[in-house]
């Protein structure tokens, strides 16, 4: 039995300790934001935040995660933002994370399969650097993680514009 703290909820999971987190999130907890892209930590489609840091759930064994570590999936981004901003429960219910809002307003995804990881990476970046330069955005999505975050549809321009837009939204609300 493994204890996981995901999106503010504690879960007891019956799975071998070497099971990659991705399969538990998707198959046991029905958290389907993270996607299986390569199983090799080479693309970023499976990314989640653990204590605010982007990790690749496809190679992260359950046994490597402590019960008190906070796992945030795409589904948990709105609540994460609401908590950070002290929004009321009612406000929080109707609020997307500014990163998600920007992703919609900029019409960023094409097929959208990689965009979970892109939004997780953007959240990690903007929480530590609220006003990143173009070079810093490129650095974040290319060299800061285990591998570059890859998009086969080629939406990088739209991602950059969405990160910049999200930064503007976040600045207005702080």
């Amino acid at each position, binding site marked *: 039995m493994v204890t996981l703290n995901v999106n503010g909820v504690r879960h007891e999971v019956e799975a071998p300790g070497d099971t990659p987190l991705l399969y538990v999130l998707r198959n046991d907890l029905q958290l389907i934001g993270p996607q299986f892209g390569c199983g*090799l930590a080479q693309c970023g489609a499976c990314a989640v935040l653990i204590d605010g840091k982007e990790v690749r759930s496809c190679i992260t064994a359950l046994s490597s995660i402590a019960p008190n570590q906070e796992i945030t999936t795409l589904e948990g981004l709105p609540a994460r933002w609401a908590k950070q901003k002290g929004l009321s429960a009612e406000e929080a219910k109707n609020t997307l994370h500014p990163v998600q809002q920007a992703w919609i307003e900029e019409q960023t995804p*094409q097929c959208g399969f990689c965009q979970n990881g892109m939004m997780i990476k953007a959240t990690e970046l903007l929480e530590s650097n609220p006003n990143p330069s173009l070079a810093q955005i490129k650095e974040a999505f290319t060299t800061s993680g285990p591998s570059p975050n890859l998009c086969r*549809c*080629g939406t990088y321009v739209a991602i950059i514009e969405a990160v910049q837009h999200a930064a503007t939204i976040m600045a207005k609300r702080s």
Partner: protein
Amino acid sequence: MATMSERPASTFGATLSRRQFVKAGGALVVGFSLVGPEFLKGDTAKPVVLKNSLDPTLLSSWIEIHPDNTVLIRTGKSDFGQGSTFTAYRQIVAEELSVPFEAITTVVQGTTDSTPDGSGAFDFLGHGTPNIRKAAAYTHQALLDLASEKLGVPKDKLSVKDGIVSGASKSISYGDLVKGQQLKLTIPVKGDLTSIFGLSIEGNPPMKPVSEYTVIGKSFKNSVISSKVAAKETWATDVRLPGMLHGRVVHPKTLGSTLVSAGQLDKAEFPNSRVIVKGNLVGVIAPTEWEAIQAAEQVAGGTKWTDWKGLPGNAKLYQHLREEADWTSAPVEKSKPSQGDVGPALASAHKKLSATYQLSYMKHAPIGPTMAVADVQRGGTVHIYTHNQNPQALRGEIAMMLGTTADHVIVHAYPGPGHYGRSNGGNAGAEDEAVLLSQAAGKPVRVQWMRADDMQWSTQSAAAFSDVQLALDEKGKLTGYQIDHYMPAMQDDRPIGAILAGLPTMPAPQVHSDGVTSTVNGIEDDWIYAGVANVLERGHGTFQVGQKASPLAVGLRDHSMRTPGQFQQNYPRELAINEAAALAGADAIQFRIDHAGEERAIGVLKAVRDASGWDTRPSPRPDAVSTGSALVRGRGVSLMLRSGTYWACVCQIAVSPATGKIVVEKYTVAADPGIVVNPMQLKRNVEGGAVMGISHALFEEVTFDESGITTDDWMSYPIPTMSDIPEIKVVLLNNPKVGTYGGGSEAANALAAPAIAAALHDATGKVMRRLPMKPAYVQATLKT
């Protein structure tokens, strides 16, 4: 309520009857008739009516108008990020019906028992008249007929705005017109539902004049983006059925290996897993995904296959294609614009070029490997839940594999990773394997390919080479142009699991295969240079590499990929035209303008020249150098006509001759599709295509040895990262006088390669006639 009329009204080939009335609700249902008057005039075979499809005369619907003034549309096309079904289709229907965009509240797509027309996720805009536009136009006419009768006002005195029909001081909403009635409008349709092209609506209903457009041309947002971003969309990868098992497939050791013996499972370690063997198909099923992965690894380790070495290896690919491939069995295709006599033009040329251009195999490389859930119900229907670009065609292939009819197969379509054409012919890879494992297990099975399966066992974009000869006169005019395109069959729609299991499939590509799966190499690249007097374009086709040698009849299976065939033909042409301009001492854009016949081609060239800051002069630049470690810069241009859209692209690059590394600094593209339906969506599609094009040009090459494909992950098959992308500038030329809308999700990916190669020539004075332009290959070229 009494029957208003038993008499069918006929308009523009459609037949409206109002025989049935319901107490409440009601909807105008536009179905299609297979025995419509237009259809019967033709000599086309009658399309087969399938169970588990929308009933063609009663239940099948393209468009429903509801009493609350909302509208539902259905299309066999599946969205893979183009956004067309959620934006352009709604805009087109809203426009033809004169209702607000927001009135179209529901888009049903893909799933085989709830959509009418089939076909693949390509050519969404149907050269300006997709099926859904005709369906909407027919609906509009029917609603006008109804309103005319109801209001007692002649049809030609009626007008519609925001779904309200008005005339002679009277008005009624569409909702009120259909309230309490169930109306059937039958329209003529032809085609084959489970073929790659599906069904098409016939007849010529009047369309709304472009001058009256109010919805088309605006940047409406794509509704599915919101649900995907909020993790509220159900993807194919999310489908879980009761009792479902997880499956993995152990694919053969080589592309020609047969099974000697399947590996065993250590039951102590994997008590709940099971090995399934059918012919050369080896699968493993388990209750959990992690167990399935680990058990499959164990089975793979113990499975014995025969060896096979029937491929040339990528180092000898072009030698193999040139010297050993059979180019004689398929008839040579000649393009329609071929004219004059190139021979004398070459004989009397002031300057000549004779050159060969080569493109490697490339993968579709979806960011998520293919997967499917199948539920084979005993004695009943086979259900497949997957991401697929042509669910109706998949349905036909699965039925063929199982020796049943398509009536027994339903394909449920869900969003999935874009795969850029790979399943347009019906299968992406795992669907048939899921069906076979489910059949053996007696339970639903989810087969997920791993990254290596997807790289090594999927189809690929065909390699090709082209020989060009061209002639210039003393004034620098292109007087003769001859191009011979050589490409193995570019589309193999056989499901791989069915092949491995030894079950029925359509034939491997051969001369007389149907349409796109034939070995015949048609001319796909529309000729734009009408100013050239002597032109000869020929296509030479052959079998897939390894197809005949492989005991499995597998080899390097090809499949159409974004801008298929045309990419393989436009790259050599456009690079050769750049070389011709250089030989003529002319500026490459001006040279094209001087030879192009069409105003729209000249329009995009001038637009891209202005937008890119192009400096008009011949290439190479006066200070071009091909040695040293200092960066040298250059620019090049390319031109294409595809699906009614004219495209011109300029790439500005920096290259280090010492390392051979090319960096694209700016990509500028101008597109004239006629009417721009949705500027924001088109711009995003083009930006994505631009990045993929840079990837094709600089990074992508399938490597293979004598046995199989050796690229197996993102390290061995790199694609661009965010740091690899240039400044991208998209210029959309809205050209309403064209009166139609051209396609936009293809072409942008094909334009980069010839423009970058021309830029390399501009910077260094050396021409590289091979893709991809990887640093090592660039270095080798610069040393020549």
